[in-house]
């Protein structure tokens, strides 16, 4: 074999802490290495050309690149050697950046370790074999999970481009949090007016199948061919018959149902349509408060429904969808403000969340847009807004910024003045974060045109005094303590991962962070992709973001799905497991441990049962190989003899070093 070694400086990232010339020189002594050089940026265009040139000129049949993590550039260099006519798997990487130069200060020791890593890579390369990719057909259909603005955008873009879309929504209507908002910043245009038409478009689009009031139950399969089992929850109303006339709601005698859409301000009926512009506009029965279900009486809704849509016998129903790609757009929930006991939320009715206030400002909200205190309905003349309640607070395990609260507080303080001209608003803040287009100007407008007092300092305590709420805080610019007597206190409840987000992530086999936000594949270069091929992210499920950002990410996720499904066939990664059927005893332990259902039981002609890997499903994790008691399963490109060659190369170098 003729191996070429290419050591990368990575500018000064590697060269400052590793003697790269020495590494290249040492490599020339390794078995089968016939060529070694070093280059400032191996991944650059001239760097890659150098590799291709050397392959031709030196007649190389294998290449070692000593540079960064394979997670960064393995694909780059595989393509490089392929362009020069080598099999892409005849390339090995030695990670001398993340594993050496970035973590060690001692140049001499670093150099020695880098040499060892190159030695290992070269030893493995000798045992490497050319691998061939296979291709398989894909299902040109996308599932979007979550019908908030991000999911709606992703669904519409995919559908407009000709893909079939299945849009699954947990609630009975799409729209997400944006549908609850009154106005949007920094333009103060009506939220429903901009979102509504998009929601209608979803309902009318021939390419979109809307699956409301449903949740993902399980996901199997792989990129291009996922099988998603969806649970259609029992709504006790046949959505195909319901016309949304609302007669049932009017006649429902159970008036103390929690009003989820209105953020628990006031009550809903047990049978309810969340809001007038709901899509689909259908009613759902709350089993916990429905008199028919709790007491076995009533039945009004069934009697009055002109469409005969009410069906008390309805049960949860499972439905399986076959899709080629999945977009997760599951949004977020709000931090539980009662955890701040010093603010008294939950004990004092006039301490509310910003989203409750938003519903109050909304003309189609529970107060028809009239701002009134929950305690006595009186119009508040002094409103205090408190930022960062469940954001930027390490003590509450919420160290992150919720991204858009500063902006909606400015908006809500402006709207307060519009609704109640003789009112006065205060905003307590830590920092004002208004970095996007038109945002800073918007905050200045609140301060200068609307006379909103911005006080820099965290609120220490809220307590009632008569029928007022005293808000005590530090004014950190003045260096004093301030107390404001307020009629209403609005807490900017922080953003947190949607309820059940980690569970869904596990079903989708994607990672999530400590707070339950889904992990992107790379924070800078792959912000839409996940580490599971074919699963993409949109909106706040990946981290707090405002409406324009969520919409942009929705479109981006659609673009990613479109790219993936633009071909009829996808290529497999040949780094998969294979079963040596002569050794296999048919115990099927591998079938049990495989997280991807990629191993099946087959019966040979002689009647013997054997395990067989489905190559298109296998993700190459190698768990089956470890579980196999007969060592009958190998993993292509990480075979035993290849790993052992690496170990041997390393041990030999250490034995030599200790003898010297």
């Amino acid at each position, binding site marked *: 074999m003729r191996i070429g070694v290419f050591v990368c400086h990575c500018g000064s990232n590697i060269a400052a802490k590793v003697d790269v010339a020495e590494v290249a020189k040492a490599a020339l002594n390794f078995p089968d290495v016939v060529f070694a050089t070093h280059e400032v940026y191996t991944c650059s265009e001239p760097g890659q050309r150098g590799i291709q040139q050397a392959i031709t000129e030196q007649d190389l049949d294998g290449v070692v690149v000593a540079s960064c993590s394979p997670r960064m550039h393995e694909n780059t260099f595989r393509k490089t050697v392929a362009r020069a006519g080598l099999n892409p798997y005849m390339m090995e990487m030695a990670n001398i950046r993340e594993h050496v130069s970035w973590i060690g200060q001692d140049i001499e020791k670093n150099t020695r370790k880098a040499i060892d890593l190159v030695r290992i890579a070269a030893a493995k390369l000798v045992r490497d074999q050319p691998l061939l990719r296979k291709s398989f057909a894909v299902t040109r259909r996308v599932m979007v999970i979550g019908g908030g603005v991000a999911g709606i955008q992703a669904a519409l873009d995919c559908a407009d481009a000709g893909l079939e879309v299945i849009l699954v929504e947990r609630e009975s209507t799409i729209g997400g949090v944006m549908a609850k908002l009154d106005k949007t910043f920094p333009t103060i245009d009506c939220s429903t007016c901009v979102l509504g038409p998009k929601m209608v478009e979803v309902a009318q689009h021939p390419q979109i199948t809307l699956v409301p009031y449903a949740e993902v139950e399980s996901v199997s399969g792989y990129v291009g061919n996922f099988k998603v089992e969806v649970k259609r929850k029992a709504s006790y109303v046949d959505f195909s018959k319901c016309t949304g006339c609302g007669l049932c709601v009017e006649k429902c005698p159970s008036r103390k149902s929690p009003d989820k859409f209105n953020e628990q301000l006031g009550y809903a009926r047990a049978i309810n349509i969340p809001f007038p512009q709901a899509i689909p506009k259908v009613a759902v029965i709350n089993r916990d408060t429905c008199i028919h279900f709790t007491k076995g009486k009533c039945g009004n809704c069934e009697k009055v429904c002109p469409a005969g849509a009410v069906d008390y016998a309805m049960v949860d129903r499972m439905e399986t969808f076959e899709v080629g790609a999945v977009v997760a757009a599951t949004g977020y929930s709000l931090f539980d403000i009662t955890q701040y*006991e*010093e603010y008294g939320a939950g*004990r004092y009715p006039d301490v509310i969340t910003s989203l409750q206030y938003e519903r109050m400002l909304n003309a189609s909200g529970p107060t028809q847009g009239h701002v009134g205190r929950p305690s006595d309905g009186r119009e508040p003349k002094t409103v205090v807004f408190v930022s960062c309640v469940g954001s930027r607070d390490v003590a509450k395990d919420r160290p992150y910024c919720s991204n858009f609260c500063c902006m909606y507080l400015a908006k809500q303080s402006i709207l307060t003045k519009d609704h109640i001209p003789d009112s006065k608003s205060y905003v307590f803040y830590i920092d004002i974060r208004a970095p996007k287009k038109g945002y800073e100007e918007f905050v200045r407008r609140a301060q200068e045109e609307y006379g909103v007092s911005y006080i820099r300092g965290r609120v220490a305590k809220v307590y009632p005094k008569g029928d007022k709420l005293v808000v005590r805080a530090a004014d950190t610019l003045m260096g004093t303590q301030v107390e404001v007597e307020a009629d209403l206190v609005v807490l900017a409840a922080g953003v947190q991962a949607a309820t059940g987000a980690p569970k869904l992530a596990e079903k989708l086999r994607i990672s999530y962070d400590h707070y339950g936000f889904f992990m992107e594949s790379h924070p800078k270069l792959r912000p839409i992709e996940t580490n599971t091929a074919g699963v993409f992210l949109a909106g706040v499920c990946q981290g707090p973001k405002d409406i324009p950002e969520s919409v942009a990410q929705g479109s981006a996720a659609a673009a990613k799905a479109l790219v993936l499904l633009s071909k009829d066939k996808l290529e497999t990664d040949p780094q998969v497991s294979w079963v040596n059927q002569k050794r296999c005893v048919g115990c099927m332990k591998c079938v049990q441990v495989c997280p991807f259902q990629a191993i099946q039981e087959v019966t040979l002609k002689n009647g013997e049962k054997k395990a067989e890997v489905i190559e298109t499903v296998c993700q190459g994790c190698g768990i089956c190989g470890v579980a196999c008691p007969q060592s009958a399963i190998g993993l292509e490109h990480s075979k035993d003899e290849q790993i052992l060659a690496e170990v041997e190369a390393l041990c030999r170098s250490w034995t030599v070093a200790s003898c010297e």
Partner: protein
Amino acid sequence: MSPQVSYAYYPGCSLHASSADYDASVVAVSRVLGIELAEVPDWTCCGSTPAHNIDSRLSAALCARNLVQVRKMGRDQVTSPCPSCVANLRTADMKMAHKDFAESTNRLLDEPYSGGVTAKSFLQIVYEDIGPQALKELVRKPLAGLKVAAYYGCLTTRPTHVMAFDSEENPVSMDKLLEACGAKPLEFSFKTECCGASMAVPKKEAATTLSGKILELAELIGAEAVVVACPLCQMNLDLRRGQIAAATGQYSPLPVFYFTQLIGLALGLSKEELGIAKLCVSPAKALEKMAAKTPPPEQPERPAKEI
């Protein structure tokens, strides 16, 4: 009642001096509740605020000495009615778990402290070891809906990681115990505000201003008495009432009970046993009002003004 709960008892200096009534009521109530208190032999001052403000090692040594005394009794649990003492004892125990700190601190002691003693406030043991339900069953003279503002002060539940008891911002333990005794605890948002504590010595205005605010809010919400679990809080709110009046221009007539005194009354103990006479602001009016109402708690009460 035969003792079911048994603790080493560390009264702390205040309880042998300015707060003898707290000590008396703790001892009397314990007897009825079946809490055995064995006073730590030859206990000494915990160092209080001055020690830990000057030198954390000195403070730890003073506390560790007392913890050693508890160990020598063959016990691993000690209780003190004073939250400041408890905070100091617990802090010392936590710090002594660090090897370097323990080594240098033990050099100051005749006998080294090697850990293993848990200190709890008397409020905590009544709440956790007896509990409101059991207490309710022992009540003989219910407090007849006496409207109380339960005031916990800074240290009863804080620092959270040291005290590990009740909620740091809105504690409820004392409220629940008083409710079990037939009182009506009010929603009181200054439960954990500072009374000024020992700042009263170097800077009197600090204490009179802060204590004044606490009394003002208690009165505003319609309380008939303030109830405390700390000797220093009691002193600032009660003994300094004249100073507070001079500073704020308002004289508040609210009496300031130790929670053990009210529990004692509910248990049927006499005022003498509970040291009620030692209170500076007379509780006579509150007690008369209570006595005027006939006990049966079944009788519906006029709801207190909700805030």
